[in-house]
């Protein structure tokens, strides 16, 4: 049992048709993600990293191959795989507490349990004072905290994050990265995190999966051996930054 990965990606190819012409968004991807891992998918736009994440979420189906969660094929979105979108996707008519309690309530948990879960996760992301606020009254960073809390409150086993901090300012991003690592360490979550920022990937990941374009594919899969908490100004961190930059052929 211990050998079964939490999520396995087996020979997955995804083709879209764009103006009638087929486009290969992802070709022959293989990947195994074990429970508790923090994996970053990194690559330029068009490398299929978001497509891969969306297939793990069940929002897209592979053209070839399969994705399995604990050995069972992924066919549709489900509460075991929580998704955090870059544009938040919060329900504007619900308060912070309402959004966080949405999943448990929708799945028919008892009222008292929903209230207790909501309270706990509102507190976990530090929004107790804003529990009654509506999304349009929140900053981007606060909205993303709500989005993270609502998948955690829903007992998601695997958290899929699609460039979740990409739209935030640098300071907010750093705070959220730190908070996310704290939550991850505390809850033993499994995270797949899509980003195009090398530094973000090195800061967060146990493993970095490097992807490339034309067609979108996985080109490398490397563990990040740096001890945590990681210092982005250390020489080791810089060495890794240079290593991955060279691999991505960019000039970060």
């Amino acid at each position, binding site marked *: 049992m211990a050998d079964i990965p939490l999520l396995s990606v087996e020979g997955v190819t995804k083709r879209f048709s764009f103006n009638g012409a087929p486009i290969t968004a992802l070709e022959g991807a293989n990947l195994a993600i074990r429970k508790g891992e923090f994996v970053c998918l990194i690559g330029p736009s068009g490398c299929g990293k978001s497509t891969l994440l969306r297939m793990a979420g069940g929002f897209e189906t592979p053209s070839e191959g399969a994705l399995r969660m604990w050995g069972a094929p992924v066919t549709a979105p489900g509460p075991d795989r929580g998704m955090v979108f870059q544009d938040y996707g919060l329900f*504007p008519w619900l308060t912070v507490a309402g959004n966080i309690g949405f999943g448990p309530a929708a799945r028919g948990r008892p009222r008292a349990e929903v209230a207790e879960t909501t309270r706990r996760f509102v507190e976990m992301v530090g929004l107790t004072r804003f529990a009654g606020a509506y999304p349009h009254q929140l900053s981007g960073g606060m909205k993303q905290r709500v989005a993270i809390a609502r998948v955690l409150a829903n007992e998601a086993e695997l958290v899929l994050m699609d460039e979740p901090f990409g739209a935030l300012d640098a300071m907010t991003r750093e705070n959220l990265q730190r908070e996310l690592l704290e939550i991850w360490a505390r809850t033993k979550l499994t995270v797949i995190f899509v980003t195009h920022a090398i530094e973000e990937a090195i800061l967060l990941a146990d493993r970095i999966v490097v992807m490339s374009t034309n067609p979108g594919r996985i080109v490398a899969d490397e563990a990040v051996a740096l001890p945590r908490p990681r210092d982005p100004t250390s020489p080791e961190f810089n060495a890794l930054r240079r290593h991955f930059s060279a691999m991505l052929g960019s000039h970060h």
Partner: protein
Amino acid sequence: MDAARLRVAGLALAAPLLFLLFWHVSTAGRSFSLIPPPLEVGRQLWDLAFGGVWDDLYSGTLAEHAFASVSRVYGGFLLAAACALPLGMLIGRIRLVREALDPTLQLMRPIPVTAWLPLAMIVFGIGPRSAFFLVFLGAFYPILVNTIFGVRNVEGRLFEAAAMLGVSPSAVFWKVVLPASLPSIFTGLRLGLGFAWVVIVVGEMTGVQTGLGAIIMEARQLSRTEIVISGMIAIGLLGYASDALVQALGRRLLRWSPQHG
């Protein structure tokens, strides 16, 4: 704070006061004027409401006429909402219904409500039922069109969010579509109620005995222009009050929406 409020009130009142002044100056003291001066209209409005000035057929009947119009406006409006809301949701959500009904409804939409008047009188007879029907028709389309728009324009991301949080496909309508389309639906209701007030006067031209539209038409034939204007003022005030009511309701229900809250 108070100065600011005073400024707002002053600005809002300036135009009507200037208009009253212009009206007064151009009509008062001219025996041949076809339009009565504002003071005379004021006196008539008082008589219409409370009696004691002319003591004629119209004295003290305002409440009765207003009640007749209000009940037709709200009756027709509520019936329109009861039909247009579910229909709009079905058209918006179910492709088969959309393809079957939308072309017909769109073809009938440009026909002005007033053009239905002769037909309504044939079908529903001369009387309040025709008025009721026209109000219904006037309110129906704004509610329908906005409901369809609201239901069809729910942000796709919200469906994904609901699905990954474990909302079953059968619950998506109540948990996502309905709340997400409330602002649009509300806009439709507000427009519909506004149209209901526009149409009521035409509707009550069909030979009904009571109603503000009815006395306006009757007074026109009797050349009692001050009653015509009094009726117009009453409709203006009632329409304004009913819109304010709906808006207050909207602000309460749609506190979450940046456009309404």
